[in-house]
């Protein structure tokens, strides 16, 4: 494998690596605000319709949500491990770990699909077949509109992340990364962990309210 060289605008690989990390964090800051807008809307309506939101949230599939949270947390662990292993020059093991994380990502999306199916059967999909009657119908409608937009956008991020992990895994397997050159795998890992962080908050906001009453 050819010794990696820094791009012409950088003094050395270390500086290039620092800049790549900084750039990823800037992108993630925009992502924080992207999901933040959704969370603001959720918070405002939850304040306005607290009883209705609690009742609606209790209708979500907490078992699937909990398994999916564990799946994403585990995939994040595998990616963090893969980044360390790749730096040691163990590209083949790093590739296996990354592909394992991607497989967990696919499992996450499959479970999400099953969950959407259940919600469709229960007539909880706004704009498609929403049919809830009673005093909390309006709040339930608002809650599930948030639910599908937020989890749908999150699922798109997971899907992008799966592709990134598979491609970076292929590069790692070819021995592209080492202690000197590992910016792509590190930055890809940052993205995947961020998707995990978003889910941690979505889980708390979507699945947990209204369980104790």
């Amino acid at each position, binding site marked *: 494998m050819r010794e990696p060289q820094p791009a012409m605008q950088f003094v050395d690989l270390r500086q290039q690596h620092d800049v790549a990390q900084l750039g990823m964090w800037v992108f*993630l800051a925009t*992502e924080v605000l992207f999901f*933040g807008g959704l969370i603001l809307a959720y918070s405002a309506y939850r304040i*306005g319709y607290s009883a209705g939101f609690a009742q609606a949230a209790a209708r979500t599939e907490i078992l699937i949500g909990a398994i999916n949270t564990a799946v994403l947390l585990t995939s994040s*662990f595998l990616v963090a*491990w893969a980044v360390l*292993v790749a730096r040691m020059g163990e590209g083949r*093991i790093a590739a296996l770990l990354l592909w394992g994380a991607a497989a967990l990502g696919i499992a996450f999306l499959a479970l999400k699909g099953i969950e959407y199916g259940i919600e469709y059967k229960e007539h909880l999909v706004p704009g498609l077949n929403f049919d809830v009657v009673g005093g909390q119908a309006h709040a339930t409608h608002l809650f599930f509109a948030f639910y599908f937009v937020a989890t749908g956008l999150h699922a798109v991020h997971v899907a992008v992340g799966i592709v990134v992990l598979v491609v970076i895994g292929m590069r790692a397997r070819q021995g592209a990364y080492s202690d000197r050159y590992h910016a792509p795998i*590190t930055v890809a890992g940052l993205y995947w962990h961020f998707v995990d962080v978003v889910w941690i908050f979505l889980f708390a906001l979507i699945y947990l309210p209204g369980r*104790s009453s």
Partner: protein
Amino acid sequence: MRRWYPPRILLLSWAGLLGLLALTIFGAYQPLGAFNTGLALAIATGKALIVVAIFMELRERNALTIAFASAGFFWLAILLWLALADFVTRPNFPSSPPLI
């Protein structure tokens, strides 16, 4: 000792995250009133900090990177604070009856 074994801190973080997940689900079923939401968000923040500090290795990064990473959350705090200051202080929200 094979060199690709996961470091102890990663294993501990993973176990800690799964433990916090179990704790937050347990907490959600306890009748704590308004504290249910606070507990859920506090545990979520704890989980996020573990991921950010250890998995994303922010604790090993330089001050500039930490400042950039914090910036997103700082602006998020402004967004939530200014907007929710309105909603939490309205005596009557929503002000009109729902349309459905």
